[in-house]
């Protein structure tokens, strides 16, 4: 019997996905994804209902990393809580430290000296580069491009060495104190940051060349999980995720803190709001951060690195503690009682790599907050999942999750 050829028209797969309606096409299946799954970036668990390869229902289950940070904060002094802020967004601990310190200083109505502010800006922006490098690298890996991950991690490693030199720790930095930073920048550190940036810019172009026009990457991310402006605002999206949906919003520019008004940078904005736009926005933000760090290095002012006149808030230098009675008492009281704060309530938000991190503090005076609430950007980003997951394909889930660039440490607190 001679072989015959039969032509089968497959039509457009993407169009079929778009036409997918409410009607159930096959048997419904429940699939549990996580909490230990490489694509869920931590301990996120998704309860999915599937019809074939299409998702009909998605219920995110969070809380596997809940440590009760807010309860802990009510039971310790303001400075003791700094290490806990490292563990919120543990990919950008320096930025969390800075946000927390500014929130408490706002409560105390305390201005830190210009040198401290500039150090903090360098910290924030290096943390942003480090966080986005991980976000981009892992995103590449989620879509099947393993190489990018290795490229970005090489650069992160260099950043970690710089962090180690500055703070004494590579990962959990705990660098800020209320009213200043823990120690001044080391001799020659700014030069080494500058060297890093010089060799980093060609590397980011290389990453750009590897990923941005990659056909597979484009196919997997373009027009996936489009989030409209209205939805992004309704679900309190912030940071790169919000900007990718076309909302021109950046607290560094709109509500400057830490002296950001003196820096020259651009805010990248997406047009479509799909997973690819979220990637593009992050890629551009890395370049803008490089610009900001360069400016900060150029203008690094001389002077004290902590607020010297805030006698009840920041501990005096060690040399003075060991030689002078008054400073010894001051040191003892701040360490045991905590920095002394007035009563009142404040809310402060800072533009962190993952979005807007906020601290709401209600104080009744003294060294311990009465109530401290952490507003976590990843928590808000994940809350949209039940809405957008409907109609997506199972293989899109890692792409969507990767494009949100969330961290469970911050989501669960």
């Amino acid at each position, binding site marked *: 019997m001679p072989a015959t050829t039969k032509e089968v028209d497959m039509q457009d797969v993407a169009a079929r996905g778009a036409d997918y309606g409410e009607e159930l096409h096959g048997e419904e299946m429940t699939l549990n994804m996580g909490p230990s799954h490489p694509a869920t970036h931590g301990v996120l668990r998704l309860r999915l209902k599937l019809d074939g390869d299409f998702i009909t229902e998605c219920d995110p289950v*969070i*809380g596997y990393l809940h440590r009760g940070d807010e309860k*802990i904060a009510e039971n310790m002094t303001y400075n003791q809580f700094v290490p806990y802020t490292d563990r919120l967004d543990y990919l950008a601990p320096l930025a969390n430290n800075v946000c927390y310190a500014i929130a408490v200083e706002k409560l105390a109505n305390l201005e830190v000296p210009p040198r401290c502010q500039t150090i903090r800006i360098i910290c924030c922006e290096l943390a942003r580069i480090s966080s986005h490098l991980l976000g981009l690298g892992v995103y590449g890996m989620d879509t099947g491009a393993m190489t990018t991950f290795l490229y970005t991690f090489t650069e992160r490693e260099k950043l970690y060495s710089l962090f180690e030199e500055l703070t004494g720790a590579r990962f959990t930095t705990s660098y800020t104190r209320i009213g200043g930073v823990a120690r001044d920048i080391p001799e020659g550190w700014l030069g080494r940051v500058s060297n890093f940036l010089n060799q980093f810019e060609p590397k980011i172009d290389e990453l750009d060349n590897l990923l941005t026009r990659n056909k597979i990457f484009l196919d997997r991310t373009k027009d996936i999980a489009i989030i409209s402006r209205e939805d992004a*605002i309704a679900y309190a999206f912030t940071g790169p995720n919000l900007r990718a949906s076309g909302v021109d919003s950046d607290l560094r520019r709109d509500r400057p803190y830490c002296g950001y008004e003196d820096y020259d940078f651009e805010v990248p904005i997406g047009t479509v709001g799909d997973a690819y736009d979220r990637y593009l926005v992050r890629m551009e933000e890395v370049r803008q951060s490089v610009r900001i760090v360069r400016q900060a290095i150029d203008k690094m002012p001389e002077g004290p690195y902590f607020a010297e006149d805030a006698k009840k808030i920041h501990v005096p230098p060690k040399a003075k503690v060991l030689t002078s009675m008054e400073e010894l008492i001051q040191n003892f009281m701040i360490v045991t009682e905590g920095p002394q704060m*007035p009563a009142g309530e404040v*809310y402060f938000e800072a533009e962190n790599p993952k979005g807007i991190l906020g601290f*709401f503090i209600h104080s009744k005076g003294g*060294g311990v907050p009465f109530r401290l609430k952490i507003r976590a950007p990843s928590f808000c980003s994940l*809350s949209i999942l039940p809405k957008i997951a409907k109609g997506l394909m199972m293989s899109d889930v890692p792409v969507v999750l990767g494009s949100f660039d969330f961290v469970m440490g911050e989501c669960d607190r």
Partner: protein
Amino acid sequence: MDDATAKQFLERFPEAKPRESLDYKAYDVPADKLVEVCRVLRDDFGFTMLTDSTAIDWGEETSPRFTGIYHLFSWLGARYVRIAANCPDDAAPALPSLVELFPIANWQERETFDMFGIRFTGHPDLRRILMWDDYPYHPLRKEFPLAGHDGDLPAADVAEATKAKVIPAPMMGGPFHAPQKDHMSKREPRGADQSWNEAKPKPCSKD
């Protein structure tokens, strides 16, 4: 919120009382007016994003005991406003839900319910979010101890097989700060919870 909008807002809602605040304009509103106030703020004053919502527990002996706190953000001048509403009932605290206005309130209110036990009337899916579904306590209430209570593991079959329980956190030596009650000169630094140490066993739940 700037002064002109604040004036307009107060004319619209004379029942809103200015609330003490160190930064943004803040208002106490009655619980039954909360949804209306937020709707007007969103539609007429441009506060389109509910950036944060939470609650404060003032302690068992205070009445009203629970206060809901809402922060709204407006891109017109990048402004914030803080709205606070006391829960009318201390024993069974409840507030109206804002899910109709802001979808993000869904998760935020689930968290507040989980941590404080405040029920949100009109919420479509008021489940626990951070703790597991059968968890019996509300951890951010002031009477809940820092070390936690002992209790059962979330999965009954695992608990049955392993005989494992949730035990209070080992907190030897910390947190280390002075109890902030009397004058500073009258007290010495010590751990906040000194009811147990190496010699005395850990306190468990009340029963």
